[in-house]
Each structure stands twice: as structure tokens, then as C-alpha cells.
């Protein structure tokens, strides 16, 4: 075990996977000499050369779209989209082509393609750098959508993504790159898709989150306990698709209450899917209405207004109190 920041864990994983499998190629804007704008690919070009770590022209659609041909010809592409907001430029390739390569070809071609993209708020970026768009991709069958919350999971899930025979959209919380630090297993470490992680066990209410909001929820749960004696269970989904409904449902079956937390706008965010699934699975266990704590139905705001947008532990705590019918 070594304590690493999330960006270090990602960088190490990329290095190890490239060393392990000569078919892995890393491509994207500024991934070479610059090592990526967050240094996630730092040192890779020096180690593996410019044919395997490729600075691409500034064109997201062809960065993502060329992976289709690369994969058919036996490469294992790991592409970076510099910020998830710019994946919209590649939406037709990502959702219309990469996601359905296996499907369209009736199983003839797999698409072992990983698309990494930073996302999420909290660091006062310019527009389109902070948007949480995960539900838009979760609605596209054929993609896996992965959103680690710890450095250890970042390593273990990224390794699984790169080795996956299917395309994976791998979402990295940009405010977590350096802030998230934890013990990361040395050597090979694979975390399976579709297995949520219980971050904090609890009996009174289930709190579901992913990516950077997991830490916010952990803090809120601690406060719920310290300030109100409420014992919240916090579950990190880890992967949005596949969605581990079973773990969430088992927890809600015990607690009877659920709070789902996301940074995305409320309407049609993935929290809605979690709630809809929970009520289908646990209807008769639920004691109070499910609560969504979410970004608002507004575009991700400019820097001075950011603090009112991203859910914080106050808002998650308020959600926990609502679900447990405590009036604050």
C-alpha cells in the first residue's frame, strides 16, 4: 500500500497498463510532453515514445472516432477528452459509433476503448470545464460509465476499464485529482465494474453518491451522527453503468430511507434513475420519500456563484434530516 493522490494513482495505472500490454496507446490533446493539463499522463511519452503516447490535433470527434479503427486493428486506445464538457463535440462518435461497435457488428468487433475525462465542479474553472453529464451517457447502451471516488478505486477501475472488451467512459473528478489521497494497493489491482462500495456502514438511512460527492456525503454522515445521532450508510456507486442496484437495494431494505446525491442538474440526472430503481426494488421497505440532493436546474455557474451550486455537506445533511424526518 502507498498513499497516493488520485492523479498519481491514475498516472501509475496508465504506466503499468502500457508496460503490461504493448497494444495500449494513449492519445489526446497535450498528453505528450506536457503530460496532460492535470499531469495524468506525465512521463508516459518519455517512457513509451511518441508512437504510443500521441498528441492529437484539437478535434474531439476524431480523437474518439479514430479509436474505432484503432481498436478494430488490434490496438487498445485510451483517449483523453480534456474536459467532459468537450465530449459533446464527440457525442456522435462516442454514443453513435464507439458505444455500438460491438452491437452494430453483431459481436464481430469489440471496442476495448477507454475515454478518460475530468469533470465536476468546485475549482472555479471557465465554462464547460465542470459539467457533470454522466446521466446523458448512462442513457446510451453499450457504454460503461465509471466514476471513482478514491485513489485506490481510480487505479483499480482504470485498470479494469483498459482491460475491458467494451468501451468505458472514465470520469475523473477534477477537484479530486490532488485533494483525494488514500492508500493504494501496490502492483496489480483490479476493481470489478458494477460493485458498489459501502464507504460508511450505517443503520438509519442510505446515502448514495459517486465521484467527488462521496467525500461530501461522508462528511455529512459524520455530522449527522455527531450532531443528530443519525447513523447514515454511505454508498459509493463507483460505476454508474453498470449500476449496482442490488447493494443499494439491500441497504435501503435495512434503513428504509434513501438520499441520492449528485452534482448534475436535478432533472433527468442519474439520481432520478437511482430513485426510480430503489422504489421499484424496495417500495415496501421505504418509510419516507426518497430524497435527491442535486445541482440545480441551471447550467454550471461561473466562479463567484459556484458555492451555491455544488451540493455541500450542509445540503446533504439537510437531505439526511429530511429522509429521517428530523426537522432541523
Amino acid at each position, binding site marked *: 500500500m502507498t498513499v497516493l493522490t488520485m492523479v498519481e494513482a491514475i498516472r501509475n495505472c496508465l504506466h503499468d497498463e502500457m508496460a503490461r500490454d504493448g497494444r495500449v496507446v494513449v492519445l489526446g490533446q497535450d498528453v505528450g510532453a506536457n503530460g496532460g493539463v492535470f499531469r495524468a499522463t506525465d512521463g508516459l511519452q518519455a517512457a513509451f515514445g511518441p508512437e504510443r503516447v500521441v498528441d492529437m490535433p484539437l478535434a474531439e470527434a476524431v480523437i474518439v472516432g479514430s479509436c474505432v479503427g484503432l481498436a478494430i*486493428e488490434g490496438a487498445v486506445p485510451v483517449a483523453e477528452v480534456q474536459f467532459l464538457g468537450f465530449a459533446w463535440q464527440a457525442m456522435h462518435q462516442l454514443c453513435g459509433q464507439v458505444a455500438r461497435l460491438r452491437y452494430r457488428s453483431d459481436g464481430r468487433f469489440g471496442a476495448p476503448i477507454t475515454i478518460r475525462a475530468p469533470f465536476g465542479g468546485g475549482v472555479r474553472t471557465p465554462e464547460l470545464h465542470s459539467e457533470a453529464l454522466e446521466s446523458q451517457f448512462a442513457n446510451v447502451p453499450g457504454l460503461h460509465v465509471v466514476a471513482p471516488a478514491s485513489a485506490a478505486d481510480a487505479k483499480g477501475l482504470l485498470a479494469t476499464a483498459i482491460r475491458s472488451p467494451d468501451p468505458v467512459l472514465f470520469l475523473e473528478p477534477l477537484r479530486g485529482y490532488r485533494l483525494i489521497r488514500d492508500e493504494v494497493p501496490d502492483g496489480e489491482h483490479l476493481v470489478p465494474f458494477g460493485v458498489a462500495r459501502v464507504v460508511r456502514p450505517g443503520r438509519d438511512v442510505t446515502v448514495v453518491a459517486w465521484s467527488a460527492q462521496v467525500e461530501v456525503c461522508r462528511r455529512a454522515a459524520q455530522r449527522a451522527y455527531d450532531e443528530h445521532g443519525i447513523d447514515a450508510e454511505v454508498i459509493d456507486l463507483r460505476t454508474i453503468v453498470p449500476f449496482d442496484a442490488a447493494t443499494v437495494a439491500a441497504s435501503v431494505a435495512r434503513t428504509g430511507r434513501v438520499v441520492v446525491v449528485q452534482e448534475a442538474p436535478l432533472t433527468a440526472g442519474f439520481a432520478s434513475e437511482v430513485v426510480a430503481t430503489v422504489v421499484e426494488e424496495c417500495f415496501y421497505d421505504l418509510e419516507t420519500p426518497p430524497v435527491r440532493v442535486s445541482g440545480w436546474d441551471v447550467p454550471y455557474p461561473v466562479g463567484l456563484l459556484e458555492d451555491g451550486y455544488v451540493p455541500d455537506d450542509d445540503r446533504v445533511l439537510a437531505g439526511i434530516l429530511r429522509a429521517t424526518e428530523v426537522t432541523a
Partner: protein
Amino acid sequence: MGLSLDDLPAVGEPFRLLAPDGSVVGPTAVLAEVLGRGPELLAGMIAARVANRRLFSLQRQGRTGTFAPIEGEEASVVGAVAAFEPATDWIVPYYRELLGLGRYGSEVLYRYALYQRGHPGGGYLPEGVRVLFPQISLAAQLPHAVGLAWGRRLRKAPGVVLAFCGDGASSEGDFAESLNLAGVRRAPVVFWLKNNGWAISTPLAAQTAAPSFAARGPAYGMPGVRVDGNDALAVAAVAAAARAHAAAGRGPVLVEAVTYRMGPHTTADDPLRYVPAQERAHWAAADPIERLRVLLVAAGRWDDTQQGEAEAAADRAVDEAWTRAEATPVSPDAFFDHVYAEPTLRQRRQREELRRHLTARAAQ
């Protein structure tokens, strides 16, 4: 040896060897090099045209879905493909070339029949047949083509990718992004733009103000050349030169084949709404099949027997492909099969639900 890309125009009159009446107007040295391929090209074009006509009746009989006719564009497809090597070269079509790919084997027509019938098996060709699936999203196949070429280079496999697109598709961002990337990576791709005058009802003047599409080649760091797309021998000569350029590691090439869509856009389209009658008449006189046939007959390289055999063979091929396609079963829940390598838990449950539903429906 042979034709050099440097000698070919990027704007203005396209390169040609034969005039519409079959008389020779281009360099005889070049003609001599490709003339031997004439009968093969003619047979390929006849196969395409016969199949195309058959598809209209199959469509009326409900045996095939809406389709995009190739009529008029046979030379620009068959002639191009003639220069490529099935053993190493990928063909990346969109949706209008499939009847012209006989060089890549009979499996292409069978799979196209499946595709046309809405069968999931129409989405691929088996291992060893380097033809990518038909692409519906215009220009979206071009990034794939660049990836294929780049991928082969990465693993040091030889081969060139022939990627088709239309005049309309040239306006999509994917077209420009792909040419640019291919240029930067010196990817061995021949971008083959079939300028057939129309994108559904949109004429060239509404598609671009540029004097040619080939002019985009140099703008993205590669040669761009124009060829008469109704002159099969000229097409084959230019395609060979383009392939040689790419195969030699000199990077991609953009070829604009100037041709004409003689039919409707698809069987659901009514070109009488927008195509000027005299335009169609003009191009009818420039038919690619007739042009080559006249030359080959005059040269003693083609006769009525061959003509009859080519037509009969084409007919048989369609019958075989369609019969085989119609006999290919499909399970009504097959769409769950290949979304992921392993279905998700949700999908497994959904599939069970669908099966119950289908059973109940069958019981009714």
C-alpha cells in the same frame, strides 16, 4: 511508373481517359496500363447495375427495405476498388457502394442482403473480408478509416484504407477532422469522395462555394485530385496512383470522383421534385458502362456473350444472396446479444421480461 498524382488537377476539368462516347482522350500510356483490367471493371459495373435494378423490384415485393441506388456511380466505385488489395486493404463504405464491392467476395452481397432486410448479421463481414459495415451517419466512417490505417501502421502491417464519402458528407466536421488527422499521422488512407451532384435534394451550389472538393486535399496537407468518375479506366488509374502514394508512406490522398446519381436518393425519394430534367439527360449520355463497353468492344475485348454471361452471373448472385439472407434465422430478442461482451444484470432481467412477453404474445 504510370500516372503521377502531381499531374492531376485539383480544380477544373477532371482527369479522364475516355470521352463519353468511348473515344480515347487521355494519355495512351496510362490507358495501356489499365486497359487489361477493362473486362473485369465492366463485369463489376454490370454486376452492380443488374443488382441495383433487381433491388428495386425486391423492394416493391417487400423483400428488402428502402435502399440507396448506385446507378450512374458504378465506375466511381468499381474502378476505385479495383486498385486495392483484399489481402491487406480495408474498404470503408457509407451506404451507396455495397453493390460495387464484388472484388471483395460474394459474402459482401449476402451481408448487404441481410443489412437490407434489417437483420443484425448485416452489420459486419466475416474475418478476412476487409469491408467495414455500411455507415448511415454521414462522414462518421472517416475517423474510423483513419484509425484503421493508423492501427495497421502501429503494428507494422501493410495496407491502405479506401474510405468513401459523398459530396454532402464533405460538409460535416468529421470530414475535415479526419483529413487533418490523416495528414498529421501520415496515415495510409485514400479518401474517395464521390461527387454525384446531389445530397438528397441539395445541389452542389448549396453544399459549398469551393471550386472543387479536391481542393481540400492540399488544405489538409495531402494531394487532392479530380477524376472523371464515369470513366472506369481513369478511375482505376487514379486509384492505383493514390494507393501507391499512400502505400509508399507518403501519407493520405483525397480523390474527388465526379459522377452523377442517376436514380433517386433512396427508394423513398422523389427526385422529380428537384432534379432538372436536362441535367439528368446530360449525364445519361455520360453513362460509365456504355462508355467502357464501346471501347472494349471496339478493341475486341468484349462481346455479346460476355455481356450476357456477366448479366446472368449478376442475376444469380442476387438470387443467391437474397435466398441465403431470407433463410438466415434471427431470434426476436437478438438485440440483447452484443451490446456488451457480457450482458449487465439489468439486461438479463430485461431479456427475461421480453421473453415472457413474446411467449404471451405467441400464445394469444
